[in-house]
């Protein structure tokens, strides 16, 4: 159960600021306790998404490197 997430967003290759906007939008829509994983491939997204997730009422559980310049951010709605 712990590794199962409720939603996945694949934002790899998307132009700034789409990854950030879509993540924030998704977190706002989610119900409390639901989880979301976001796949990104840009270092700037990795640095700014945690800031906007916090503002949208979520919490970053982990940021894992999933490949060359690719990361998986796991987020929980508070």
């Amino acid at each position, binding site marked *: 159960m712990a590794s199962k997430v409720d939603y996945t967003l694949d934002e790899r290759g*998307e132009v700034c600021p789409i990854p950030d906007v879509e993540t924030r939008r998704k977190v706002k829509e989610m119900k409390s306790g639901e989880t979301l994983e976001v796949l990104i491939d840009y270092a700037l997204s990795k640095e700014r998404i945690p800031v906007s997730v916090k503002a949208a009422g979520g919490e970053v559980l982990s940021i894992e490197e999933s490949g060359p310049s690719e990361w998986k951010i796991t987020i929980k709605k508070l």
Partner: protein
Amino acid sequence: MSAIIQGLLVGIVFGVVLQRSRLCFNSAIRDVKFSHDNYLMKMALVGILIETIGFQAAAQFGWIKLSPIAFIPAAQIVGGFFFGMGMVLAGGCASGITYRIGEGYVTALVAAVFFGVTAAAVRGGALSFVNKWFGTAITTTNNPGGVYSANNGAVNLTIASWLNINPWIIAIISAVILLAVILFTKTTERKVSGLNWVWGGVAVGVIGIIGYLSQKTYALGITGGWINLLRATTGSLDPTKPVPYNWIGMLVFGIIIGSFIAALLSKEFKLRLPKDPKTFAKVALGGIFMGFGAGVAGGCNIGHILSGLPHLAISSIVATIFFVLGNWFMYWWLFERQRSKRS
């Protein structure tokens, strides 16, 4: 050292710093309003603060003549607004799309080519006629301290040349205001893996001063550089009149190389393609808006914001205001408007 080698070297260092600091004016302007995040904005302000004092000092020592961009009100208002809208569509400002080419962003390359071609068309190409719509520059004969470059006695407007007061007074007032904003606002926390906002800002400011000392006629710019790169590379139809590469063209080329090296070394280089092909059309349109805007306004976010605001040039202050308004409008139109309609 020849001018083009100097331009190339300054460009490579600038490219490394842009890549490591992730400074993008499109993000900086947007974040302040829509994410209440001032991280990149404060980085830009540190750079502008250092240049405000540095440019003035360099002119005082007689190393350069300050050359503020010509003030053409309608051009900076309309062009500024178009440039501001364009950078949201393109996914980056003029410097942003340039250094992202080095990181492997295919969309950035598309946006940059459309930006460069449109700007070249506006500045002396097939679209030159649009400049007539905006009128001529407002200048002054005041040259306080003799620090400004004059063309037949005409000096472009800065706050100091307009009011005919010692430019140091205006530079120091501006620097104190910037310093107060930098010190007394809370910086948004951001875990960064490259240069933080202070060091990124200091590096950008110092490169701006070195750029001015090296190029002499102006500090950093992107628009003129893309125009020169494209013109010199495609050549003229008359081979006896080749278009030579210049300092600023090599600066832009250097930014791409520097960013590529920095991205490779930090393992952040990757060929990135959007999943939806419509994205290409969107960034191309963004590039056209940016090229038109920067072409008529006399500069982009680097020419007007980073290099122009330290001059306290009236043109750059007006252009910056309209870059910001265009950016906020387009961001709202694309991302906020839909959501408020849906809910």
